[in-house]
């Protein structure tokens, strides 16, 4: 694997919060079995980037076409956001927010010096990040149990978001 080059770093600096990249994501369940490498490159969302003295830390959240189990903290990506993110419009796609890979810009073995292949809108991604914060503030098991995967239409899903945020 290549280390991230300066050009890759610059791409992330321009699009720090909602970019979609490809990354050899290692699932939490696979890491728990002792696996050290992601089985394939998959789309991931750049969720959060925080400045660190030895290189900025970035959290990546996985995007999958496999429907997550209902107790996962995951959101189906609506059609318009799939287009923005460069995802195929003909398949159901979810972003999973209850696990992540973190990596360090400039020291990663996995980040490639490629530009992002799309971006989510802030209107879509910010409520998800806020919900993640709210869930983490709450007693976790109860909060996650309340947050079943939403399989509704985009309009109804956003209504559910607003209700959840109130």
């Amino acid at each position, binding site marked *: 694997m290549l280390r991230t080059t300066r050009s890759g770093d610059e791409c992330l600096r321009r*699009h*720090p*919060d909602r970019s979609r990249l490809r990354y050899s994501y*290692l699932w*939490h369940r696979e*890491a728990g079995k002792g696996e050290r490498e992601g089985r394939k490159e998959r789309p991931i969302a750049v969720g*959060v*980037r*925080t400045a660190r003295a030895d*290189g900025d*830390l970035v*959290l990546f959240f996985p995007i999958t076409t496999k429907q997550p189990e209902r107790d996962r*903290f995951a959101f189906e990506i609506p059609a318009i956001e799939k287009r923005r993110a460069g995802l195929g419009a003909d398949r159901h796609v979810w972003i999973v*927010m*209850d*696990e*992540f*890979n*973190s*990596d*360090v810009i400039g*020291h*990663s*073995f*996995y980040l490639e010096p490629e530009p992002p292949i799309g971006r989510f809108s*802030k209107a879509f991604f*910010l409520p998800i*990040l*806020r919900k*993640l*914060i709210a*869930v*983490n503030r709450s007693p*976790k098991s109860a909060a*996650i149990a309340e947050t079943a995967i939403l399989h509704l239409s985009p309009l109804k899903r956003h209504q559910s978001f607003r209700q959840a945020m109130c």
Partner: protein
Amino acid sequence: MKGADARAIGSIDTMSDALFADMERAVEQYAEDDEVGR
């Protein structure tokens, strides 16, 4: 010389308080940022 793998695997249940605080700050800043030009 190649350094150590910096990647870590985490979950919402195991996120440290420090990382959570960093994430909160980043999300707040993201919320305040202007969409134009991003």
